[in-house]
């Protein structure tokens, strides 16, 4: 029963996040609009829950985005899910300490790997199927803005949360 309620909770959360991403983020002025709110939440969920469930949350979130995307179906889903898996591994074995800069480093890994997968798949579809035409300069510029604002927001939220949540408090030693 508890697991069922938890799944329902996750489902509602995913839908709300998709709505925020599609219907609200555009309110921000340029270039702040390039912020990737989905990855802000994915990184924060990873830091709070510390479980592999985050990969499946990412899968369903990117599936929602894929329904409205202009790129061939699969590019966002594949890059989003795989980059979250990669970030989860990094969190388990490299950035294991609890600090705002570790949170920002995880965010950098998440966004960078997402865009690397995304651009690679986009270029592949351009060569193999000739569906899309990749224009690199704006793509890279937007990716950098996305990386900057997403990382800054993750760091900021982490700082705020570390004051509120005992889990993020580095002074507390768990035995």
């Amino acid at each position: 029963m508890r697991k069922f309620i938890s799944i329902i909770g996750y489902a509602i959360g995913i839908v709300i996040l998709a709505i925020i991403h599609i219907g609200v983020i555009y309110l921000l002025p340029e270039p702040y609009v390039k912020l990737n709110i989905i990855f802000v939440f994915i990184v924060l969920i990873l830091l709070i829950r510390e479980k592999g469930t985050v990969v499946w949350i990412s899968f369903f979130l990117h599936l929602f985005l894929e329904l409205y995307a202009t790129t061939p179906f699969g590019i966002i889903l594949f890059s989003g899910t795989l980059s979250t898996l990669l970030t989860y591994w990094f969190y388990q074995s490299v950035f294991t300490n609890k600090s705002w800069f570790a949170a920002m480093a995880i965010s950098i890994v998440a966004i960078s790997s997402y865009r690397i997968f995304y651009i690679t798949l986009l270029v592949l579809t351009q060569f193999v199927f000739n569906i899309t035409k990749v224009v690199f300069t704006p793509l890279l510029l937007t990716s950098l803005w996305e990386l900057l604002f997403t990382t800054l927001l993750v760091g900021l939220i982490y700082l705020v949360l570390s004051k509120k949540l005992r889990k993020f408090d580095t002074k507390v030693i768990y035995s």
Partner: protein
Amino acid sequence: MRRRNSLAAITTVTILVVILHYIGWLIPVENFLRSIVNRGSAIAYEQGLEINKIKFKTVQDLENAYKDAIEKNIEQEGIVARIKLLEEQNKKLRQELNYLTTTTYQYLGAEIIGKNVDPIANTLIINRGTKDNIKVGNPAIAYNGILVGKIIRTEADTSIIRLLQDGQSKIAATLLNLDYSIGLIEGGYGVSVQMNFIPENEKIEINDQVVTSGLEEGIPRGLLIGNVKAVKKEAYEPFQQAIVKPAIQTNLLDSVVIITNKL
């Protein structure tokens, strides 16, 4: 070993979903998911527009805006009078030439329910789709003749518009200068767009208007795109470029009109 297994599981599920999508078996699920998000997104977008509306900080700002509006209105009245006169002349000349009307289009209003799914793209999501006879390539306009973008993806109840500013947007355009220069409007330059492939010998003035050329299938001639703000010209290059400021701020739009097939 555990890592390899989870990678294999995620990759398999993702590939399976992609295959099911292209086969068409996922359509009912996709439509169901879309219907949930569409409702929430439409409400969120509407509320967002309310917040985003222009607000004046001081009474002086409001007064200045009012004076500007009056000046523009007087200017517009003159233009409208000239257009009416030209329309009359055009009608008479067409009658005299027994001109056959072949460019009648159908117009369909659509509500915007979301924007920019991917931070890299510049898109709008509307609540009309294939059920309303919308097809890929149909132009989207606002305020009775300002081009917003083109339809690039359609589903049963929703469609995606690629805005002029998008990095992959390309529209055949004409400059309203002495030469009626033809070129290609391309996005990917921030809030502005760039008109490329304008022959080097043709003269471009700042504030010249740019309209659709009508050379593209399904896009009528004369839809306003914007005004020239700067010109880039090199003596050794065969073409020059014009930086064009789009005539419309898409973040304040709540609806658009889609031009569908010719009647």
